[in-house]
């Protein structure tokens, strides 16, 4: 089972939209795909019209495979399932910290259902937490959507520094530009400077598009209602590029 995490220390960069759209494309290929919403905001869960879990979610996280499998919901899209968001990230962190191997608990859980799915996408909450440590242990690749701005590049540098010191060896980090507005000089300049960056950016950039913002209204992946839109096509290209690397 391939495990792909969408993560950035900063919030509001397009993590959830990316996770949902890429998971959708994976399922379209006929691969059994699970999207795990690890952000208590529950945006991915909302997009896919599933209710968030309210009670006992973090306990289920620590208990094991069977309890997790019980809460999985099939989405409206063939081959795409969702593990809905739990109510509180704080409670997850507490539950993890109380378990054995607190930074590897999620990886152990993921291994327990690797026969059930071909691909697992993790939509992660922003910030460096015990959950994010778990993600780094579990993932084959970390996709880092990044808005082309100075602050965003600075945050990416913080992530790189953190992973150099604390991250598992050989973790594949794949930043890509998201919510790009090519009318903005700053965006263009930022993108042009990435050749020197230690992380190799993916070639595909996702443009800013109201069609993607409308995911909250349509409550569906962008390909379902705006397949010809530039952003939808960019996600398809991003998916192809990601697959060529994995």
């Amino acid at each position, binding site marked *: 089972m391939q495990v792909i995490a969408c993560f950035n220390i900063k919030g509001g960069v397009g993590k959830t939209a990316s996770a949902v759209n890429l998971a959708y494309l994976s399922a379209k290929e006929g691969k059994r795909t699970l999207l795990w919403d690890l952000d208590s905001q529950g945006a991915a869960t909302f997009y896919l019209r*599933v209710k968030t879990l309210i009670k006992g979610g973090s306990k289920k996280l620590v208990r094991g495979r069977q309890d997790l499998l019980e809460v*999985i*919901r099939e989405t409206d899209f063939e081959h795409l399932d969702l593990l809905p968001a739990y109510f509180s990230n704080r409670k997850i962190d507490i539950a993890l910290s109380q378990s054995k191997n607190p930074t590897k608990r999620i990886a152990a859980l993921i291994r327990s259902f690797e026969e059930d799915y071909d691909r697992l996408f993790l939509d992660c909450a922003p910030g460096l937490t015990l959950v994010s440590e778990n993600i780094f242990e579990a993932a084959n690749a970390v996709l880092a959507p990044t808005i082309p701005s100075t602050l965003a590049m600075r945050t990416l540098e913080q992530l790189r520094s953190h992973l150099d010191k604390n991250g598992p060896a050989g973790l594949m980090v794949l930043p890509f530009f998201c919510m790009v507005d090519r009318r903005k000089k700053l965006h263009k300049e930022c993108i042009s400077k990435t050749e020197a960056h230690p992380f190799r950016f993916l070639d595909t950039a996702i443009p800013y598009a109201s069609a993607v913002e409308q995911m909250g209204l349509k409550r569906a992946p962008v390909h379902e209602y705006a397949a010809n839109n530039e952003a939808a096509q960019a996600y398809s290209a991003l998916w192809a590029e990601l697959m060529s690397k994995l």
Partner: protein
Amino acid sequence: MTTNLLHLPEKSEPHRIFEQLKKHDQPTLRLVTDAPTEARIDYSDTYDWRIFRAGLTFKTNIGNPRVTLSLDDKDGRASAHFDCEKPIAFANQLPPGVFREKLYSITDVRRLLPIASVDEQVHPFRFLNEDEKTVVRGALISRETAGEGGIPLPTLVRLRGLRGYRSELDAALDLFRQSGAKPSPESELEDLVPVLERKPHLPRDLKVHLEDDEHATASAKRVFLRLLDEVEDQKQGILDDLDIEFVHDFRVAIRRTRSVLKNFARVFPDDDRIKFNKAFADLVRPSGPVRDRDVYLQKTDTYLQGLPAEAAADFAPLIDQAKRSRNQAQDNLVKLLREPEYAKLVKGWRKYLRSEDSDAHSTLPIRELAKKRIWKAYKRLREAGDAIEDHHEIERLHELRIDAKRLRYALEAFGSLFPDGSIKLLTKKLKALQDNLGDLQDLAVHQGLVAEHAEQLPASEGYRKALLAAGRMVAHLDALAVQERDRFHGLYATFREQEQHELYRRLFK
């Protein structure tokens, strides 16, 4: 998530059903219908209903331009499906893959015979919750048999709850039950049984359970009657030329009959035994050329892969000749089965087996007789096998094959008198040896057939090339035979292992 299959009352019209269901709409469970589609579904199975017996249904959805094959379970859920260009008659016509393996594991080499064709009107629907999320998917399927004068069939409801939405599925099921829906029978095919020409049946179990202290004649008669039923079961399939395995099973049943007659010579008076044995020998004889050619034609594709491409192409006229020759042999067999002598033999033999006159010949308990006969057959096989020093002694290998069959038939006919696990073990090792000897026999026969067909070829364009290709084929088959003969000693050594020998001694000496 579970799929449920329901029947609706007769003459249920989909739009009325939907109207009725919509009256019960709630925010948490609201019905939405989608555009209907039409489909032609062809159902098929082997002549012995292997797919049906496996609890599955094989369907071909005749689409345009492609067809979809599916193996469905009893809830109508596709346990496997495959898109291809045209319908298939055999599992091995499919490209290698999961679907072919699954189908082949059930059907083996048997032909898929048509059972029924159904025209379907599929009315898909969904139930949504208050978030407009699909929680249950389903379809109402109106059906009738295909063609003119289509016979209406029960309307089906297929319901599937999405994972995690069990209570919604239960609520949807309740709604349908209130509309008069009832659980459907075990399989979709069961609805079709009243309109089928061929009905599903369980194949005959050739194993006859024998009692230790039963008299040998009484036991043998029960075995013979079962074998006779098996012979009769194949007749129509041979006449209709539905599947080459009918001829095979016909021959096996007759060979077993003759083998038991010979092996257990004391069970009937000699005159009767000789008379019936000869009659069955005459009966089985015309089926030999059919079976030889069927097996040959089945294997030619594999054989041709061992030739250079141009020789394989030049071989085509010989395959055509093989098919003509096979059809001629089939016509001869059909003629024999239609003759009064065949019906007379079957009737006479059945009457003989049921009459009390033949009862008292052997009062020896069957177990005692079985032990003696099996031990004798085993010893004979061992003596013949041990005497073969050079595995190129073709005649001796041919005789050994016959001895092996004799032992196998005796084990199978009277195996129920001995521990099941032991019989299975003995039969397994014997089968491996038999398969090798059988392959050798096939290769010898097929070399002969190639030569025969080459002689029969009409003079035509490509004739010389065909003759050359025939020569190359014979050489190729000879090389294959050398490989099989090289395997013989290893397989025979396994068969004659001390542990096996001890088991034969313990059970039968």
